[in-house]
Structures are given as C-alpha cells and as structure tokens.
C-alpha cells in the first residue's frame, strides 16, 4: 500500500496548530529549527547553486561554441569543469533532495518535525560556508581544483591551495550530509504516526530512508579519501604517491566506491518524487508498491559492487572486469522494474498533463535513455573506446539533469501549492517544461555523436570536425539555462500570490500532507494522526 486514504486518517485536528510562534525577519531563518523553514532554506540554496553551476556550464559551452580558445586559458577551463561538477553534485542536487526531504517527510509520516531539529539547522547552515570555500577557490593563487570532480591524484597532490579549499568544502558538505541523513533515518524510524507501518509509508519516504543509509555508508569513505589526500599534500604521507610506495589508482577505487553510490544517492530521491507524481496524475494507486521498495533496496545494494566500471582502462584483471561488467548490467533489472511499474501505473489511468506530470513523463523518457547509454558503457570493450569522450558526458547528463533535475522541477510544481498556499501559473510551468525538454535534448543529444566520433571531454579546444555539433550543443545549453528563468518566475509568482490553493489541489493525492491546509500551519501534527 503506497498511500493513506484520507478517510483512514483519524486525529488530524489542526485547530490548535495555528499558533505560529516564531521569530520574524532574518533571525527566523538563521535560528529556525522548523523543518518547513529549513526545507525552504535548502531549496533556495540548491537553486542558487544551480544558477552558479549553470553559469559555469554556459561559460564552458561558450568556450566550446567554436574551435580555438575564446574565453579561457586551458587551466581556467579545467577549473570551470571541475567546479561545475562539484557545485552541481554537492551544492545543487544533494541539498535540493534534502530540501524536499525536510519539507515532505514529516508531513508524509505525520511527524511534528525532524527528530533532531537543532542539528537540522546546523546541517543547513554549514552549507553556505562550504559553497563559499568552493567558489572562493577560483580567486586564490593557482585557482580552483583542475582535476575534475573526481579529484584524481597525482594532479590533486601537486595543485595549489585551491585544492585545500575544495577538500575542506567536501569535508563540510559531507558532515552536513551525514547529519542530515542521521536526522532523516531517525525521523522515519521513530516518529511515524501510529499505524503507519514501513510498508504503508509513501514511496518518497522509502526512497529517502534508503538514500540516507547510502549516505551514512559512503560519505565517511569520501571524507577519509580526501583526508588522505590532504595528508599526502601537507603531512608527508604517501597514500597515493607512487614515489613513496603509495598507489594513485587506489584513490580511484576509494573515490568510485563513494562516487558510484553517489549517483544513486542523487537519483533515488528523484525516483521517490516521481513515484508520488505519477499515481496522483494517473488517479490510480502506484502499481507494485512492494516491488518498488525491493527494487529501491536492490539498486542501493548493487550500487556498491559496481564501482570499478568507471576504471576499465586502469588495467584491472579480466575476472574483475567481467564481474563489474555483469554486476553493472544487473542494475538494469531493478531499474527496469521501476520504469515498468511507473508505466503500469499510468496504463488505463485518468491521466491529466499538468506541469508535474509533464516533468514526470519527460523524466521517464530521458532517464530511460540515460539508463540505456549506461548499459552501453557497462560493456567493457565499448567502454574502452568511449572512456573520457563526450558520450560519457551525454550519458551522465541524461541521468543527472533529465533524471534528477526534471524530477525536482516536477516535485517543486507538485508541492508548490502546499508550500505556498497558492496555485502556480500553469502556463509558465508548462512553457518551462517544453523549453527545458527541447533545449535539454538540443544540448546533450549531439554529445552522443561527438563522443562516438571520438571527441575527448575536458578540453577547451577541439578539431574542426567536431565544430557543427558543438555549436548546436552550445545553443541548446544557452536555451536550457535561460529557460530556468521561467522556473524562478513561476516560483516567485506563486509565493507572492495567485489563486488560493485548497488543502488538496490534486484530486489524486492520497498521502498525509494533503490532509493539511495549504499552506500548512507552522507547527503540524503536534497530535499525531492515527493511520488505520
């Protein structure tokens, strides 16, 4: 059972919940321990970093608009690509997912707030400092990290102080993520409303429970890896220095032991959001709820035994290559179960195409394409040809942008009426979807062709033969970037006013948050609802 019908909920009396005693002005946001405020802070932070990382992406595409060096020296170009990756992963996508979790988990499980409200505040307020370190590293002598978001030694051992900034930023963001995960797991395990068993929980909460476990498992590993990098740089250790008996390839193993599950840390909350949107706008319960939970769990566990598929060109033993190749292909099975279940939910449903559903369907198309190119890359002989080409760039942008980001956009439109108390402007939201969908494909589809033709990634200049598709790709990237102005307009318009949203703006919504008024009172579920 994926949802809680309203007539099965008792004790949702909010008459006494309206006492919104909280500081006002800036102090409200600095000192807040309220999950809704902190969720809002996370989401705005994520949007800000999305803009910063997006501007970097557009600068990268401007440089690649035509062959030759236009804007950057090669070093600066590498700094842009590296920071773009780090900012988008750690600054935009992860905090965005945590923002949704903060807002929605307590509302969906009938909890009054997160389990550790003060720690929640702290885990958010660490982030702006980490982001400042990361972006600020552009302006220190030697510039920012140039080795890509993967931070491979020996380059990162040799680099200037920008690398130290990046290491500390990752430490801080990692600490924030771990605190956030502890909070989410504890909230879900201990503060669910009476009667809400785990298998009655909305799938968004399940997705986050599993994601939080993944974070607890891998963020300390990344923190350990970058700590060893730091001691190699400044304290004479040689973990990754071949001259001192260390092994640079070992860093790749440790990094991808974190890095591959990280992909799922980013995509699982998106799966959760999509699993809320599709049943609502299909007006049917989610098909195969239990199998969705098992598929999420299988994806999470399998994500830990495939990391070396990122390292097929490092000289792994044949048996190892075969293992990682087949294990990677195996992930397609639970992922396929999920896609099948979403489609089966839509089958013969009374589907309407409001903006959240459009983004969910866009997600289904494009994420599946990203998944297929991932399958192609899992085949070792092909991967060796495509290693470090634009084919890989196309693949992971189909997963990260069209997958996670589209789900976040859909989720934002889905819950905006609940968050703000106003309906968003459907015309702007639909325009946002169509422009994003078209320009995304214009930007990233040609990268498959560039990769197939052998264009390497992370270079500021390229051979004349790649010029045409690069120009198309850059035009698409500018269009996609500018389309996001519509999201900003839609959100701001919705916050400032508009048509009043009812408690349940979507007739197909069945989870607990729709039993609350829109916007919900500052304190909700002080008396836990009873789920029958």
């Amino acid at each position, binding site marked *: 059972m994926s949802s809680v019908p309203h007539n099965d909920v008792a004790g949702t009396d909010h008459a006494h919940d309206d006492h919104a005693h909280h500081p006002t002005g800036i102090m409200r946001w600095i000192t807040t321990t309220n999950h809704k405020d902190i969720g809002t802070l996370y989401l705005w932070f994520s949007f800000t970093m999305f803009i910063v990382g997006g501007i970097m992406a557009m600068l990268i595409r401007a440089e690649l608009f035509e062959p030759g060096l236009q804007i950057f020296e090669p070093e600066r170009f590498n700094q842009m690509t590296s920071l773009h990756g780090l900012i988008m992963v750690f600054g935009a996508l992860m905090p965005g997912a945590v923002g949704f979790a903060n807002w929605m988990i307590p509302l969906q499980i009938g909890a*009054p707030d997160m*389990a*550790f409200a003060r720690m929640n505040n702290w885990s958010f307020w660490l982030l702006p400092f980490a982001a400042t370190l990361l972006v600020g590293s552009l302006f220190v002598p030697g510039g920012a990290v140039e080795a890509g978001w993967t931070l491979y030694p020996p380059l990162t051992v040799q680099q200037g102080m920008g690398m130290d900034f990046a290491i500390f930023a990752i430490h801080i963001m990692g600490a924030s993520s*771990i605190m956030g*995960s*502890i*909070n989410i*797991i*504890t909230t879900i*395990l*201990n*503060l669910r409303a009476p009667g809400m*068993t*785990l*298998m009655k929980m909305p799938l968004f909460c399940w997705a986050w*429970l*599993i994601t939080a*476990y*993944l974070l*607890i*498992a*891998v*963020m*300390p*590993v990344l*923190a*350990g*890896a970058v*700590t*060893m990098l730091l001691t190699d740089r400044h304290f004479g250790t040689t*973990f990754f220095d071949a001259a001192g008996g*260390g*092994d640079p390839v*070992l860093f790749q*193993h*440790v990094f991808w*032991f974190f890095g591959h599950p990280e992909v799922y840390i980013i995509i699982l909350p998106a799966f959760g959001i999509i699993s809320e949107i599709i049943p609502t706008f299909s007006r049917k319960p989610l098909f195969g709820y239990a199998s969705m*939970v*098992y598929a999420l*769990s299988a994806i*999470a*566990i399998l994500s*830990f*035994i495939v990391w070396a598929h990122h390292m097929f060109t490092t000289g792994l033993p044949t048996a190892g290559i075969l293992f990682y190749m087949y294990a990677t292909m195996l992930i397609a099975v639970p992922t396929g179960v999920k896609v099948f279940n979403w489609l089966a939910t839509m089958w013969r449903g009374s589907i309407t195409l409001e903006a959240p559903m459009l983004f969910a369907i866009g997600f289904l198309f494009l994420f599946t394409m990203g998944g297929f190119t991932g399958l192609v890359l899992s085949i070792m002989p092909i991967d060796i040809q495509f290693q470090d080409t634009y084919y890989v760039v196309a693949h992971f942008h189909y997963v990260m942008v069209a997958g996670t980001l589209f789900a976040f956009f859909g989720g934002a439109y889905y819950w905006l009426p609940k968050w703000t108390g106003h309906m968003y402007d459907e015309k702007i939201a639909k325009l946002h979807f169509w422009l994003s969908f078209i320009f995304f494909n214009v930007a990233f589809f040609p990268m498959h062709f560039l990769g197939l033709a052998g264009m390497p990634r992370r270079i500021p200049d390229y051979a004349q033969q790649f010029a045409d598709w690069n120009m198309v790709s850059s035009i698409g990237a500018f269009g996609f970037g500018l389309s996001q102005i519509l999201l900003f307009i839609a959100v701001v318009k919705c916050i400032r006013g508009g048509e009043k949203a009812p408690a349940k703006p979507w007739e197909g919504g069945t989870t607990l948050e729709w039993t609350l008024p829109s916007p919900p009172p500052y304190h909700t579920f002080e008396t836990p609802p009873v789920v029958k």
Partner: protein
Amino acid sequence: MQADKRSANLKTGAILATIALVFFAGVIVTHYFSSGTAALTVIGTAVLLFLIVAIGRHLRK
C-alpha cells in the same frame, strides 16, 4: 517531545553517528594494517554488510 521518543532518537542517532565515524576512521586506518586492496576489501565488506542489515531488517517488517 516525549522522553521515551527523545531517548529513542538519541540512541538511533548515536548508533548511526558511530557507524559513520567507524567508516571514516576505517578507510584510513586499514591502510596501515595491510595493502590498499586489502583495506578496501575490509571497509567495502563492512559497508556492504551494514547496508544489507540496515535495509534488510526494515524490509522484513
């Protein structure tokens, strides 16, 4: 929040924080015990077991 819920939260939080600390220290310390490959095997197995147990016990409920 009720006292029993508060103490249950603290217990869960403390266990999870300890696991995170052990993984952080483990990935560094195991390098001193043996080769890098062995270190990764030890910490990798520990992490995988943690996940299987943590997620698996919820699936059984």
